[in-house]
C-alpha cells in the first residue's frame, strides 16, 4: 500500500520558428537539437519501459507551437537534413580519432545515437507526435496543453479575450493532434492570474499548475500546502509545485546535473575543432555553433577529462536512487502529519533532460524502473488519475504567480521588454473589435481575419520577452515581435477598409502557417 504519490511533469516547449525563406536558419536549430537530445531520447525511454512492462506515469505538456513544428513538413524534412549532416560528421570523427581510443569510443557512440535518432524519426513517419500519442493511448503518459503560443497570461489582465483565444486555439489544436480533449494545461511560464481558471473551465480543462507560492499564498490558506491540489471557485483544480524535489535536480548543493562525471555542455567540437574541418557542419556564414558532439565530462577543473559513458550511467542510476529515497522519506513524513496521502508534484522543463543534462533521460528511466520495482511507499500518478481517486479537495483561490525569475512577472516586464505591452494590448483590442464586427465572413475576408489572429498570437509568445530579458538573441526576439505586430496592423487596416491584398495575404499565410483551422471568432 503506497503512502503517497509522485507526479512528474515535463513541460516541453519551443516558440514557433519556421523560416521557409531561408535555406539555413540558425534559430531552427533549437528544434533540431531538442529533437535529437530530448524528444527522441524520451521516446526511447518510454518505448523501453513499455517493452519491459514497467508501469510508469508521466505528465507532459507539448505546447501547440511545438506540436505544430513537429508536424510541419518543411521542418521535418529539414530535420532529416540536419541529422544526416551530423551522421556524416560523426563518421568523419570516428576516422579522425583513430589514434585516440578514448575519443573514438565517443565518436562511435554519437554515430550510433544519431543513426538511431534518424531511424526513430523515420519510424514515426517523421512526426514524433505519433509517438507521444501512442504513449498517451497506452495509459502511461498524460499529455496536457499550454497557451496556443505560450503567451504570458498575467500580462493579459486587460485583454482577457486574448487569454480566451490562447486557450481555445490550444484546445482545438490539441484535439486535432491527439484525438481527444486535453484534461490539463501547463499555463505558459506557470503564470497564473486569478480568474483565468474561469476561461479554462469554459474550455473544458480540469486542472493546471502553479509554482509553490501560487498555492501557499492562496486564499484561504491551503490546509495541505502544496501536497494536495486545491479547487478554484470555478471547480478547476490547481496543483502546486514541490520545491524540495525541484531543488534536487537544480540546486548547487544537491543538484544532480553538476556531477563531475556528467557530460560537459560547453565543450563542443563545433567550437573546438579546426575551422576548415568543421565549416560544413556549422552555420554557412561561419558562425560556430554546437553540433551536439561533446567529448568531455564536467571534471570540476579547467583540465577537462574525456567523458566516460559507463561511469556517467552509474551516476545516473545512483542519483535516481537518491531521488527516490528522498521522495520516500518526504512522503512518509508528510503522511504522518497529514493523515492522508501526500502528492508530490515535480515539474521540469523537458529540454533540461538530454539537451542541457545529457544523462537526464537516463536518470528518468532509472527512476521509473526503480519506483516500479524497488519500493512500495510511492506511486507514480497523473493529475487526472489523482483527481478521480481524490475528488474532494479544498476550495482556494491561488495567488498570482509564475515560475520565472523572482516568482512573478518581472522576467517579462522590465526595462528591456516592457515596451511591447502597449502594442500587444492595442492589437488585442483591435482583434476583439474585428471579431465583433465580423460575426460572419467568407472567402478572403475570413482568411484575413484568421491570419490576423495567427499574427497576434505569434506576437504574444512569452519567449520573445524572455529572450529580450536574458540579453542573447535579442535582435531576433525584437524582430519577431515587431514583424507579427506589423503584419497584424496591416491586416487590421486592410480588413477595415475592405481592401485586402490577396497576394501578400497568401505570402504570410504560407510563412506563418500555424493553426490551419483557426477561427478568429474565439477572440471575443
Amino acid at each position, binding site marked *: 500500500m503506497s503512502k503517497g504519490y509522485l507526479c512528474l511533469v515535463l513541460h516541453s516547449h519551443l516558440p514557433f520558428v519556421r523560416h521557409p525563406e531561408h535555406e539555413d536558419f*540558425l534559430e531552427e*536549430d*533549437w528544434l533540431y*537539437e531538442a529533437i535529437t537530445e530530448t524528444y527522441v531520447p524520451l521516446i526511447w525511454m518510454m518505448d523501453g519501459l513499455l517493452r519491459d512492462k514497467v508501469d510508469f506515469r508521466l505528465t507532459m505538456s507539448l505546447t501547440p507551437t511545438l506540436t505544430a513544428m513537429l508536424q510541419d513538413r518543411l521542418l521535418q524534412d529539414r530535420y532529416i537534413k540536419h541529422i544526416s549532416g551530423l551522421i556524416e560528421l560523426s563518421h*568523419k570523427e570516428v*576516422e579522425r580519432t583513430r*589514434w*585516440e581510443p578514448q575519443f573514438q569510443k565517443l565518436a562511435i557512440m554519437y554515430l550510433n545515437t544519431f543513426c538511431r535518432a534518424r531511424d526513430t524519426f523515420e519510424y514515426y513517419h517523421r512526426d514524433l507526435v505519433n509517438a507521444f500519442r501512442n504513449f498517451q493511448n497506452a495509459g502511461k503518459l498524460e499529455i496536457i496543453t499550454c497557451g496556443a503560443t505560450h503567451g504570458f497570461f498575467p*500580462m493579459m489582465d486587460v485583454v482577457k479575450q486574448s487569454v480566451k483565444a490562447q486557450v481555445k486555439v490550444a484546445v482545438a489544436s490539441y484535439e486535432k493532434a491527439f484525438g481527444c480533449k486535453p484534461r490539463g494545461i501547463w499555463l505558459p511560464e506557470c503564470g497564473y492570474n*486569478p480568474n483565468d481558471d474561469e476561461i479554462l473551465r469554459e474550455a473544458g480543462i480540469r486542472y493546471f499548475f502553479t509554482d509553490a507560492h501560487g498555492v*501557499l*499564498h492562496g486564499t484561504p*490558506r491551503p*490546509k*495541505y500546502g*502544496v501536497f494536495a491540489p486545491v479547487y478554484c471557485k470555478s471547480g478547476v483544480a490547481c496543483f502546486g509545485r*514541490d520545491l*524540495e524535489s525541484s*531543488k534536487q535536480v*537544480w*540546486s*548547487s548543493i544537491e543538484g544532480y546535473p*553538476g556531477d563531475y562525471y556528467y557530460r560537459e555542455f*560547453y*565543450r563542443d567540437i563545433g567550437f*573546438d575543432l579546426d*575551422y576548415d574541418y568543421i565549416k560544413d557542419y556549422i552555420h554557412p*556564414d561561419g558562425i560556430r555553433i*554546437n553540433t551536439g558532439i561533446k567529448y568531455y565530462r564536467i571534471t*570540476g577543473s*579547467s583540465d577537462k577529462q574525456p567523458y566516460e559513458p559507463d561511469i556517467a550511467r552509474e551516476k545516473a542510476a545512483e542519483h535516481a536512487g537518491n531521488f527516490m529515497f528522498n521522495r520516500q*522519506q518526504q512522503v512518509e*513524513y*508528510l503522511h504522518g*502529519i497529514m493523515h492522508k496521502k501526500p502528492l508530490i508534484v515535480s515539474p521540469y*522543463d523537458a*529540454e*533540461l533532460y538530454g539537451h542541457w543534462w545529457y544523462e537526464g533521460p537516463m536518470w528518468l528511466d532509472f527512476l521509473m524502473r526503480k519506483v516500479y520495482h524497488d519500493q512500495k511507499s510511492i506511486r507514480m500518478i497523473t493529475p487526472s488519475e489523482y483527481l478521480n481517486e481524490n475528488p474532494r479537495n479544498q*476550495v482556494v483561490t491561488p495567488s*498570482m504567480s509564475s*515560475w*520565472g525569475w*523572482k516568482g*512573478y*512577472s*518581472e*522576467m517579462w516586464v522590465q*526595462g528591456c521588454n*516592457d*515596451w511591447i505591452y*502597449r*502594442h500587444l494590448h*492595442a492589437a488585442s483590442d483591435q482583434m476583439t473589435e474585428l471579431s465583433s464586427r465580423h460575426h460572419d465572413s467568407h472567402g478572403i475576408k475570413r482568411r484575413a481575419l484568421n491570419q490576423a489572429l495567427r499574427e497576434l498570437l505569434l506576437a504574444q509568445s512569452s*519567449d520573445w520577452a524572455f*529572450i529580450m530579458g*536574458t540579453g*542573447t538573441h535579442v*535582435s531576433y526576439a525584437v524582430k519577431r515581435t515587431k*514583424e507579427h505586430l*506589423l503584419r497584424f496592423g496591416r491586416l487590421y487596416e486592410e480588413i477595415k477598409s475592405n481592401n485586402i491584398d490577396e497576394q501578400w495575404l497568401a505570402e504570410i499565410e504560407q510563412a506563418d502557417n500555424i493553426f490551419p483551422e483557426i477561427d478568429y471568432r474565439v477572440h471575443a
Partner: protein
Amino acid sequence: MAILRKIKSGVKKMISGSRKSVTAKRAVSSSAGKKNAQKKTKPTADRTAKRAELKQPEQAAKKEFLGVSETAVGRMKFSTPEAVRSASRSMPTELPAAYGRDRLVINPRDPYWIFSYWEVTPGTYDTLRGRLGDDFYKAKKVLRIYDVSNIVFNSHNAHKYFDIEVGPDALNWYIHVQEAGRSWCVDLGLRLPNGEFITILRSNVISTPLDGPSRITDEEWMVPEELFARLYGMGFGFGQSSPVGKTWQERIRRELFSGILSSPGLSSSGSPVKVPQRGKKRKFWMVVNTELILYGATEPDAKVTVQGVPVKLRPDGTFSLRFSLPDGTQVLPVRGVSADGEEERTVTPVVSRETK
C-alpha cells in the same frame, strides 16, 4: 538584479571563452552592434522606464529566490549564437508611436510593483490647455494611486491614495506600493499650482498578489497553525528539520528572501549557469592541437587501406584522411591493390609528434 547580471556575465564569458575563429568573433561582435542599434529604435518610453527601475529599492533585489534555474535552463534552449542577417522587407519596420486613443493601463508585476503605461492624445491635451490656460504649463504631471481594495471605487471612497510625480515625457512608470494583496486604481492627472488635481485618464483596477500565506483560514476546514507551518516550510523545500515555530511567517519569509533558497547552482561548476574556469581565472589563453592529413591518388577502381582500414576513393581516384594527432609515433601503411588484384603498392609514412 545582481544574480541576473551574474548569469548574464557568465554567459558572455562562456561565449568569449569558446570563441576561437576570427569569423566567429566577427559574428558575435556585429550582433552586439545590432543590439545597440535596436536599443536606439525603441520608443522613448523605455528610457523613462529604465529610470524608474533604477529607483527600485532593495525590495526587488531581495527576492531572487525563485526561477533562477528556470531562467538559466530556458536560456539554454536558445543557446545557438546569433546569426547576422539583414532585414529585407517591404513592410514598415517600426511600430506606431501612438494609437490615437486615450488610455492608461496598469498591470501588477509582483506584490509590490505595478507596471503602468499610457497614451494621451493631442486632442485631450488641447482641451485641457484651453480649459486651464497658463495653469496648464505650470501644472505637474502626476500619477495618483488609489487603494480600492474591496470597494466599488467612485473617486471619493478610496482607503488611501498617494501621488508620484512623473516627468513630462514619461509614457510608462513602475509604481511601488507599500502593501501586498491589495486592489489599486490609478489616475494620470495634473496637479495645479493651487494643489488642485485634475484627472486626465483613469486606469483599470487590478489586484496585487499576497506575499505570504493568507490570514483567512477556511471556516469549513480548520487549519492547525503548526501543521500548516510545517507543510508551508516543506513546500518551500526546507525538509524535515524545518524549524518553524511561532514566528514562522516572518522567519520563512526571511529565509526565502535572504537567499537560503536562492540562486540554486550559481556558484557551482555544474550549474546551468556555469562559468568556464578558463575564462574566469585568466584572460589570456591558448590551445594548440595537431591533426594529420594524409592524401594520395590511385586508379579510381583500386582498393586502398590505411592501417588496414578500407578507404573510400573519390570518383577521380584521390583520397584524403584526417586524423587527430596525439603525442607519439604513428606508422601508416597505405596499401593499394588494383581492381583485378594483380598489382599492389604499399607506402608507409611514419609520423611522430612530441610536445615540448
